[in-house]
């Protein structure tokens, strides 16, 4: 019971931590990809 609670807690922490860095990074990458497409226009 305690082990499953701990693994659920870990999963929440992982989602929050990766979301915290992943969302801004993904936004920046998408912006750059959109600008990069100009090379092919």
């Amino acid at each position, binding site marked *: 019971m305690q*082990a499953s609670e*701990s*693994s659920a807690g*870990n999963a929440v*922490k*992982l989602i929050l*931590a*990766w979301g*915290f*860095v992943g969302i*801004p*990074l993904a*936004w*920046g*990458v998408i*912006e*750059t*990809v959109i*600008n*990069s*497409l*100009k*090379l*092919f*226009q």
Partner: protein
Amino acid sequence: MSFLSKERIIAPPGYSRWLIPPAALCVHLCIGQAYAFSVFNLPMTKLIGITKSAPGDWALTDLGWIFSLGIFFLGASAALLGRWVEDGGPRRAMFTAALCFGGGFVISAIGVYIHNIWVVYFGYGVVGGFGLGLGYISPVSTLIKWFPDRPGMATGMAIMGFGGGAFIASPLSVWLMAKFTTPTHIGVPEAFLVLGVIYLCFMMVGAAIVRIPAPGWKPEGYVAPAQPKKLVTDKHVYVYDALKTPQFWLIWWVLCLNVTAGIGVLGQASAMSQEMFPGRITAVAAAGFVGLMSLFNMGGRFFWASISDYIGRKNTYFVFFALGIVLYALVPTAGSLGSVELFVMCFLVIISMYGGGFATVPAYLKDMFGTRYVGAIHGMLITAWSMAGIFGPVLVNYIRAYNVAHGVAKAQAYNTTMYVMAVLLVIGFICNYFITAVHERHHMKRGEEAEAMT
């Protein structure tokens, strides 16, 4: 402060090691802003004149020093404070880096507000530069200790963040300046202030979640190889003893030459592509090319560092140098054939290997010198980057200028540079070839190791 001490951040049993890369990324995504600092340059030349430069406004040449000082102090602080970072642990280093980097922006905001460039030099260049250096090396040894099975991938992820930081900083800075700009004022100081606060908070999150593994911890199911590989040591070399080994200086040259070749073309990519393909690559397309190169620079950091876990660090650098020589030699051919596709492909692979060189080197150092002082040793190796930052652009710019002055057409003016870069990579290949295992006389003795661990 006990909150910052190493003892307070020992991970409890069951702590997921996958929380450490986001902690490292919190820092590296922020300090990667340095690559995007140039977005402030033009607005800062019009702080008085607003629509165009007026008497008393700063010149671009004055503003260029802000970035140069930042990079200089990045190298200096990484080299001087590496030992302090190792001894105090990653939280203290990340906390201090956050204060310096965020504080540097706040000081610079005051400098811009009172229109005193020396305050900006001190703020972003000196204080911010210390934040850059401390932040850059702070998570390296922690990641290596958490991922003994995949050290390349782990450090590659963090250093990828440094490459990706500009992707966030560039549009965010432009948006902030637009928000605070009025018909009578350019919103640079407010943008600096907001960025300083954002970066301070973001980096503090990294400092809060970072943990070090408990002594003797190993990943579940991980068994260290029974037969250690020839170029991977399980011993440790003291930070200053590493400087006495030929291996340190060979890796120093390997990094310096790999970076010199990449950094020169990265800075000149826009102009070079337009001059080599006049009429075919426009200014807008060239900006797209630069963006694409930045993506490959970031992606290469993760890709190549991860590959190095399977093929070994030495082989990874052999690939960088051998493939780099071929690709640099192909660039003039691409120009003479008028093949934009070949030109773009060559540079995208080259720039991925430039990023890969940065990301693979911490694991190379760990293989050679062990994990105990790898962060501090990495800090001292960063001086190779500072050196390459001067050599690379100088080589590209001066050889091109010399050729143009001697009547070479602009489209062919970069050919000599490409061959020079290929020669530099040949030298890098030779340096890499001579890297062997560190002699055991440099290894720390058992007693020293135990003392160092406390």
